[in-house]
């Protein structure tokens, strides 16, 4: 295992220490491993809390700030944070207008956030609403699975619901934006290599030269099937085909197209993929209204990418363009 870390057991604490130094505009609670907006709780504003296992940086801590999250809980690598962290985050951002939990659909994340909400309900009058993201079309959303995973759309939910909250809208409306974004977004990912969980010390799976995994998630879990390595052009088709089959993205005000790097894939390649995604969408009659290209929701050093499409309308475009000031997404301010 070749990593720039100290003891694998300390990697999350060490990284939070680095984040705290590098981002004095954030407030980091090292005990609870919560990254707060420096000015949280923001009076009158609905608080947005998310969190999940570490190893997906900049998600979620890198999305804390004006116009996005109020707090993010960092779990161990690829392990959901614990309820105590979520309770601390929820209390820390509660300004009386209620708190939205943005939860990626993984059994552990859902259960821990549920327990946190139960604890908050028992302890205080804070109103908490949870929205679960589940946009990964690689997984069948059926009784025979844990449901679709929450992947790329989570970043978009955090931005768009964050903008809605920043406008001073009430909890129900902010939650509604989050739910709508999740409902209108779909993703599909692939990997060229596995990643290595620091504490495990070796790659989670073997991926021989000449092969790639289709339908991977963001935890180094193997995908749905293994296929021969293909040019970016075909990869774009393989990723978009199930996405476009799952939801009609044509017409309307177009889509937000998001090509996400898994961590080990250079930006040069992500732009190559984006060019091919554009081409596939143009052929399918899908108009791109906004785009995002970069490594925003990663799986440690895994090489690969995912594509997320979100149907947008005037309101979502306005919320997307609204000011945001976080370590990883910043504009308009």
């Amino acid at each position: 295992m070749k990593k720039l870390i100290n003891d694998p057991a300390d990697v999350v604490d060490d990284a939070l220490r680095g984040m705290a130094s590098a981002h004095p505009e954030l407030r980091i609670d090292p005990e609870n491993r919560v990254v707060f907006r420096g000015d949280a709780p923001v009076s009158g504003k609905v608080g947005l809390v998310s969190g999940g296992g570490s190893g997906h940086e900049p998600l979620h801590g890198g999305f804390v700030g004006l116009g996005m999250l109020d707090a993010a809980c960092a779990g161990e690598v690829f392990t959901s944070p614990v309820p105590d962290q979520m309770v601390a985050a929820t209390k820390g951002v509660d300004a009386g207008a209620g708190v939205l939990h943005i939860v990626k659909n993984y059994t552990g994340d859902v259960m821990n956030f549920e327990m946190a909400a139960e604890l908050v309900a028992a302890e205080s009058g804070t109103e908490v609403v949870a929205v679960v993201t589940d946009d990964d079309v690689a997984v069948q959303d059926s009784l025979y699975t844990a449901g679709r995973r929450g992947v790329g759309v989570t970043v978009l939910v955090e931005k768009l619901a964050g903008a809605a909250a920043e406008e001073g809208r009430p909890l129900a409306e902010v939650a509604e934006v989050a739910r709508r974004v999740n409902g209108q977004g779909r993703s599909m990912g692939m990997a060229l290599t596995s990643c290595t969980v620091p504490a495990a010390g070796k790659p989670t799976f073997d991926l021989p030269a000449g092969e790639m995994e289709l339908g991977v998630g963001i935890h180094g879990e193997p995908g749905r099937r293994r296929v021969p390595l293909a040019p970016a052009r075909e990869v774009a088709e393989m990723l978009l085909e199930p996405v476009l089959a799952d939801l009609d993205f044509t017409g309307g005000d177009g889509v937000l197209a998001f090509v996400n790097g898994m961590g080990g894939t250079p930006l040069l390649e992500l732009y190559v993929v984006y060019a091919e995604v554009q081409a596939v969408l143009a052929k399918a009659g899908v108009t791109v209204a906004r785009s995002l290209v970069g490594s925003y929701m990663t799986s440690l050093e895994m090489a690969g990418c995912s594509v997320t499409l979100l149907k947008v309308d005037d309101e979502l475009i306005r919320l997307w363009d609204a000011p945001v000031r976080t370590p990883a997404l910043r504009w308009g301010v």
Partner: protein
Amino acid sequence: MADLDTDTLGAWVREYARAVTEHRDELTELDSAIGDADHGTNMHRGMTAAVAALDASPPADAAALLKTVAMTMISKVGGTSGPLYGTFFLRMSGALDDGSPAAFAAAFRAGVDGVVARGKAELRDKTMVDALLPASDALSEAVGAGQDLDAALRAAADAAAKGRDSVTPLVARKGRASYLGERSADHVDPGAESSVLLVEAAAATLGRS
């Protein structure tokens, strides 16, 4: 054989902590194949912390002991196994009546019911439930039939192992392994394996106490 008390239950917890540490890499390896390569790390972190918590402030009684283990699992593990094993010990703690084998069997059943309530897994979904439920059934049955705790826990451990093995060929329908679809078949479920270790630890400590 003495009734179960704080010391004997403490021995169970310590033995389980030892076992998950011994099997840490193996559990993580199982989780690499059909999950995200952290189950051994998770269980090791949680049970080590549980033992440390017991050392730091020795519990007043058996219920307090189980509650300490529960709260430590819930606040130190995260992921799927943290809430589930945490709920298991929490419900056991709440249900434990006296130190009799029957009380233990009932508390164990309450714990397993808690896991099922929290995780909503059914038998043959290929989760820890496939080891825990048969173990609980075997334990209750043996105790009900008047067997001593030693024999009852041995039967429970056998049932847990049989349950784990019986779902190995299956396709997972809950948790991360379900994302793999057909590819999850013919792999041992890591949570079922850690549950087998839990019951074996009970047999190795409580049964002999």
